[in-house]
């Protein structure tokens, strides 16, 4: 747990770094909330009008003053007000976040449910035709951009079958679980497609590695039946790299769902962040990035915990 506490200590440090980075970066982008809102009409504003609007958007003070103000608020759980939503940033993020996390989780679940058995299967059929087929699938899957898959699915569904997952607003998981699943299954599949492929590959190669390990030989010398050797002895060890990959990937899925959310018109965090950037909603951009970063780190932490659960060498420390 020592390691864990050390990680927890670096948390705020990294968050601070991320916050400074996003704060500066978004302000260095040309254009501000005023031009984003008024477009070319912003040119008609008199200097006094402009000043009034800058005050309204809270961008009239120096960067350092803005940052301090924001940081002090953030420390008390107030991430500021979203100027495009007219609501507190935190509320906006929290209303969008469940969808993205569900989408990413679903993608991970799909990837694990398909990829893991497939990879293990391929490993036990090493070099046989079925192994080759799995590997080709995995290779192709990893090589296809998600937006191409998304566009294709959408086009085929709507023009050939005349059906479509619900687009636009989110169907609540709690009010309509079936509808929610219907809405999210395709986007999750799109999002998790290449991830499924990489899980397949990683679990295959991890399994192959593990099957060569000494303790597998020991298990066999004990007379453990072949299937049990795979599931009870080899798999728990082979899971370790799969968990690492899932953690890293889950982090990316959280931040990288933008394209899928755009194609399927899902109101998730990725699109929120993108829209916030386009509309120069500074507080919202900061909030989104910080939130995604926080989640990324929490997921990493969970992966470490999963590691510890899987591997007593980490859980209990060295001898």
């Amino acid at each position: 747990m020592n390691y864990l506490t050390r990680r927890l200590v670096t948390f705020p440090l990294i968050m601070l770094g991320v916050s400074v980075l996003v704060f500066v970066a978004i302000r260095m982008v040309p254009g501000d909330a005023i031009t984003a809102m008024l477009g070319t009409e912003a040119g008609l504003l008199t200097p006094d009008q402009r000043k009034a609007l800058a005050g309204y958007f809270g961008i009239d003070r120096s960067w350092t003053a803005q940052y301090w103000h924001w940081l002090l608020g953030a420390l008390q759980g107030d991430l500021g007000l979203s100027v495009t939503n007219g609501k507190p940033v935190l509320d906006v993020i929290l209303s969008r976040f469940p969808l993205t996390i569900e989408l990413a989780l679903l993608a991970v679940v799909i990837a694990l449910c398909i990829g893991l058995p497939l990879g293990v299967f391929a490993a036990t059929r090493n070099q046989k035709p079925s192994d080759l087929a799995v590997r080709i699938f995995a290779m192709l899957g990893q090589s296809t951009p998600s937006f191409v898959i998304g566009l294709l699915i959408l086009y085929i569904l709507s023009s050939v079958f005349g059906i479509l997952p619900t687009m636009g607003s989110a169907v609540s998981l709690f009010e309509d679980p079936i509808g929610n699943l219907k809405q999210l299954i395709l986007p999750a599949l799109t999002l998790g497609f290449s991830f499924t492929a990489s899980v397949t590959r990683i679990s295959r190669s991890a399994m192959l590695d593990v099957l060569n390990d000494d303790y597998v030989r020991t298990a066999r010398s004990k007379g453990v039946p072949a299937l049990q050797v795979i599931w009870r002895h080899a798999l728990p060890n082979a899971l370790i790299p799969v968990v690492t990959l899932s953690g890293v990937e889950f982090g990316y899925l959280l931040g990288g769902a933008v394209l899928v959310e755009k194609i399927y018109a899902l109101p998730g965090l990725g699109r929120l962040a993108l829209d916030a950037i386009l509309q120069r909603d500074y507080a919202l951009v900061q909030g989104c990035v910080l939130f995604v970063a926080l989640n990324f780190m929490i997921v990493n932490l969970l992966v470490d915990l999963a590691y510890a659960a899987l591997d007593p060498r980490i859980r209990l420390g060295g001898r």
Partner: protein
Amino acid sequence: MADLLRGLLRHPSGRIGGAIVALYIIVAVLAHLGVTPYDPIQQFRIDRLKPPSGAHWMGTDMFGRDVLSRLMVGIGQSFLVAFASVGISAVIGTALGLTAAWFGHLWDGVVMRLMDILLAFPAVLLALLIIAVIGPGTGTSVMAIAFVYTPIFTRVVRGPALSIKSRDFVDAARTFGSSRVYILTRHLMLNLVAPLTVQVTLALAWSLLTEAGLSFLGLGTQPPASSLGLMLSESGNLMEMAPWLLVFPGIAIMLGILGFNLLGDALRDILDPKTRSALA
């Protein structure tokens, strides 16, 4: 080097991956030298949106430009961005990872925390912000992708570097009084070549994908130049009218990524002493 090539030729996925990448590089070089069926930016008004035919093997786009010619140039452009960005991030990432592993302590802490910050920052948004600040273009795409990938290289290098650092031959070098630079370059770097090569091919695949994504959002390569991503993006709303505009660049990008992935797999096998003997 010759060993590596021979190994690749003997490895089944190395052969295929190598062939794809080699083909693409040849195509890119040809396109760069101007050897394309048509001028890739010449617009032929009467030939707008023509499906594939004998004259235009892959059809024409909405400006009447030859898709094949644009694809050839696009492959070159996409590869350029991929190679340049991966090159930059590999060099910077390696330098950072190596020094972090070697000096440890404060420097290690500072570098790795900085990398943690970059890693925690959503990658797509980071790239978008960088491009928005500097303005789009080939150079910017290269920089943005390099920026996003640098922390990954740093991590990939630091781990093995730490373990190599404690290997006996490094200790041996220290007993001779070898200089730091010598140890870093000859002992650490040389032994990192294997993990790095593998990572580089994976990064190339990823970078190809990211370039496509950025161009898809209109923020990568600037028209009328072409890149695979830009071609995909331009085909977006024409998909139903002119599917060939989507299909060919789509296949090209898939194959390219496939090529790098296969190559990476093969290199991993070839450079890993555990599997090398099995292959020989």
